[in-house]
């Protein structure tokens, strides 16, 4: 394989470099700027960095060289350790868009009465004098912005990695800031710290699995590069055990990140415990990045060995959908319910992963697996960021209030916000004229085209189950009586930042539901992975 080295490699990697650079700059700001000026500086810095990176990503996307006569576009970078191709740029765009939503949610201060939703001083133990002091002095933990930027950097690196080591580094770069961010809630700090610890412990475990898998696959193929692994898988029939075990281990690491059953157990606790702004950002962006990496690893490196990993994916997709939607029924907390619903969504996306891979196998204009998954991730991101944005607004005297009982009758107290939330739920349930429907349609179609009809049948069953808990929440908000005793939650007016995030989420969900054509075309235009 002979590739011309691009002359302006830094130009193609510019979005990634900007994000990481701004993250480092944020650390310097923390070190050198006086406390009172940090918050504004950090917010603006993060925002500008993400916008610049998004602009860069669009520019890179327009500029990608065509590869041969196929549908693939892009090139290898950094001596072949990174690959910037159509799907990479598409995923970059998604991560950046939802990260901007994340920054907007992070910068919300009106809901908490002038402070952010993050702990005043993370080092002050909950319930101590130090914590009280931190809150009376109005301290704020502005490090959340550089942490977010580092996480975004990792998320952009993750689907762009072209060898196993880079992928592992990216995995860690994206995970570590998220562990920290999960533990920084201002209220219910113990819950938040417990969530962070659980996430960290299980995450570290899964990273261990991933690393071991890297070693085994290296033992099999003699190389870290996906292209070389692919060659080895094609030609080498010896050491199959090494390959299979290694592949399984790598899958554990990635499936943990996307929250697939049986590696989903962290999801509800972390989604519930983490500050809601972090949950919204994490639920959308982590899944996007991790699915990008998963697709690249399995399509590019192990694509020739489909028959080995597809049965595993079948089982995991079926389990994930069923467990996610069944457990969501018994939840009594909005954030936990959304967490389990996100598990179910992972299953639906995995259904799409099972589809036919290459455009050459398909009729003209037929939807490819990659296209379907990319589109689903887009719809999922809009709904999730928007929904968690709404959750931050629903509050009682003790801060955010996500218990079902408190949400009863919310639709009568705040019809617009409850209506928007209902709209997000309908999209997640896959009701037509919302984005979620088109997404579901796309992933089910590719799976059915590939002959995975049992999975599609289970997916439809799981959709029916999931409709139940979404609709029940709508019923709770609009039709049920308010409890006679106990407090009820009300919608507090947030700052413009949160409102914009929610509005963009709702607009995206509506537009993608009614005119999905452009984004689908964009996903098709992204072409295939290159090796």
């Amino acid at each position, binding site marked *: 394989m002979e590739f011309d080295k691009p002359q302006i490699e830094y130009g193609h990697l510019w979005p990634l470099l900007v994000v990481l650079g701004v993250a480092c700059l944020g650390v310097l700001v923390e070190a050198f700027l006086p406390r009172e000026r940090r918050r504004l500086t950090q917010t603006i810095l993060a925002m500008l960095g993400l916008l610049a990176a998004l602009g860069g990503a669009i520019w890179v996307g327009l500029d990608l060289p065509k590869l041969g006569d196929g549908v693939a576009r892009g090139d290898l970078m950094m001596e072949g350790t990174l690959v910037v191709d159509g799907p990479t740029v598409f995923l970059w765009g998604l991560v950046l868009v939802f990260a901007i939503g994340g920054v907007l949610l992070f910068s919300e201060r009106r809901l908490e009465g002038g402070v952010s939703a993050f702990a005043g001083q993370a080092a002050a133990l909950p319930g101590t004098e130090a914590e009280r002091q931190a809150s009376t002095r109005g301290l704020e933990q502005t490090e959340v912005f550089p942490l977010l930027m580092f996480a975004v950097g990792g998320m952009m690196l993750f689907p762009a990695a072209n060898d196993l080591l880079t992928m592992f580094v990216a995995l860690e770069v994206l995970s570590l800031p998220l562990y920290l961010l999960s533990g920084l809630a201002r209220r219910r700090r113990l819950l938040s710290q417990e969530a962070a610890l659980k996430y960290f412990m299980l995450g570290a475990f899964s990273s261990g699995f991933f690393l071991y898998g890297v070693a085994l696959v290296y033992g099999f193929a003699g190389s870290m590069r996906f292209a070389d692994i692919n060659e080895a898988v094609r030609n080498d029939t010896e050491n199959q055990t090494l390959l299979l075990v290694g592949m399984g281990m790598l899958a554990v690491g990635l499936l943990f990140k996307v929250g697939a059953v049986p590696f989903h157990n962290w999801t509800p606790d972390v989604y519930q415990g983490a500050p809601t702004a972090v949950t919204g950002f994490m639920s959308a962006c982590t899944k996007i990045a991790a699915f990008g990496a998963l697709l690249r690893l399995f399509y590019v490196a192990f694509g020739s060995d489909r028959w080995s990993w597809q049965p595993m994916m079948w089982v995991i997709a079926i389990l994930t959908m069923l467990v996610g939607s069944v457990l969501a029924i018994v939840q009594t907390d909005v954030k936990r319910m959304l967490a389990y619903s996100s598990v179910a969504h992972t299953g639906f996306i995995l259904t799409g992963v099972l589809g036919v891979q290459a455009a050459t196998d398909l009729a003209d204009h037929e939807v490819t697996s990659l296209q379907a998954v990319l589109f689903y991730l887009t719809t999922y991101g809009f709904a999730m960021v928007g929904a968690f944005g709404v959750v931050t607004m629903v509050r009682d005297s003790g801060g955010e209030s996500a218990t079902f009982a408190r949400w009863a009758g919310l639709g009568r107290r705040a019809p617009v916000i409850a209506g928007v939330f209902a709209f997000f739920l309908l999209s997640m349930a896959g009701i037509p004229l919302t984005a979620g429907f088109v997404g579901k349609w796309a992933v089910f179609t590719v799976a059915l085209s590939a002959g995975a009809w049992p999975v599609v049948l289970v997916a439809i069953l799981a959709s029916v189950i999931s409709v139940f808990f979404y*609709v029940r929440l709508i019923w709770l908000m609009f*039709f049920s009586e308010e409890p006679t005793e106990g407090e009820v939650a009300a919608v507090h007016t947030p700052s413009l930042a949160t409102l914009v995030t929610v509005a963009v989420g709702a607009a995206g969900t509506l537009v993608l539901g009614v005119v999905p054509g452009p984004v689908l075309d964009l996903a098709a235009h992204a072409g295939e992975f290159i090796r």
Partner: protein
Amino acid sequence: MNDFPWLTVLVALPLVGALAVAFLPKTPGAELPKQVALGFAALTLAVGVAIAVQYNTGDGMQLTETHSWVEAFGVHYALGVDGLGLLMILLTVVLTPIVMVAVWSDTDDGNSTAFFAWTLALEAFSLVVFAATDVFLFYVVFEATLIPAYFMIGGFGREGRGRAAIKFLMFQLGGGLVLLAGVIGLYVVSADAGTPSYLLSDLSEIEMSTTAERWLFVSFMVAFAIKAPLFPLHTWLADTTEKATTGTSVMLVCVLDKIGTFGMLRFCLELFPNASQWATPVVVTIALISIIYGALVAIGQDDLLRLIGLTSLSHFGFITLGIFAFSSQGASGSILYMVNHGIGTAALFLLAGYLIKRRGTSLISRMSGVEKTAPVLAGLFLVAGLATLGLPGLSPFVSEMLVLIAAFDYHWWVGAIATSGIVLAAIYVLWVYQRVMAGPDLQAGETAVASDRESDPVTEPAGGGTATATAARAATLTETRRDLKTREVAAVAPLMLALVLFGFYPMPLLDVSNPTVHTLLEHVGVSDDEPVVPATEHDAAEEGEH
């Protein structure tokens, strides 16, 4: 003028109306939003009539509009009307303003603006369903109708409506998702055959394997059997009609549920002709069970609204039977039946609604002697009831006879069983009339009825208010005994007229539906003579009447 997008205007009007009504300022008891809503419904009716005037019987799909919507999926925004679609569209645009007039002041205590807005939204989506000539577009609006329906059931009606709304939605969405599997399957089949396309005209050309065709048929049929409820998928129907307002029930049973039988004709027969014939024995059996079971269960009901809901199960059995008898009598009869059932059941529901509003209960055992105090109400109820049981001279008779002829043609015992459904219909209608309308106007039942009413003034004054209490009681009595107001009569009058008119002169309906039936049966591979009403009606009257 032919390029004018009539159908788009038709479906856009109520949608715009719904948005306009939703965003009008809300003041309690304001008439303006309701007037605006009625205005939009009337405009839609006018456009519907304009379409009917232009419609040329015998020309197949007309007023077609086709625009590419999602190219990647082969999805088009494609509309068109044929005879079947036209009749359903007319039924929808006629029933919507009638429902609005009938429930004008019923929802004042709740958020009446919302009810009118949802009704318009439901009308808009239903119209797209009946005009869609692209399977994907059909599916999208098929599901979208559920959102207004859900909010209409859940938001307005009686205690326990929330649960009924969830049950309704779960059944419908379950069916919808089964249909989604079929729709996706169609895409795969059509992609295998070349370029994927969802246009009905493209899809009906495709040769598919027998297995694929049968599976796809099953998925479509299950969804439609939930929509136009057939045994054993009907359990949501009675609960929904019991808890919802009668206006909602009319929109649901008379318009929305027609999508099921409409879908069987439009999609099952047209796309999967061989599989439809393959499945006929099973479908006919289920239809027969629905006819008999629905009627039997209806006889046993004590709740007037549940009863009317369950009679529809029986009627949908008849319609399905006619469709799957595969003869032109059957198919024409079914299409007519869909229209007549829409008119007759709407009248029954609305009249029952008036009655329940007066008496404060929907239990048959708590009512008696209505004809003494409210003769107009009782008389109209009798006419609508007689129409339901298929009395000659009223329009459902014609369609019922055509279906029965087809059933006898199919197999004598099928016809025999179906005919016994008519006998049962006579029982449930006449017995209800006897219990509710005839008999003495019990004064003893009065207190029981009065204490049912929430705002009962009788129990309030503790002492010294005996005179006011008596006066209030007398007022309540007058209120519960009052005959229909002009507005209420005006709402059902068009339905009554239609019942009589089409009973004596069904030719306009047959003229519209016959060409469609002819094309359809030709496609399925069955051909026989078109039904000519006067000749066959006579013979059938001998066989079918009791």
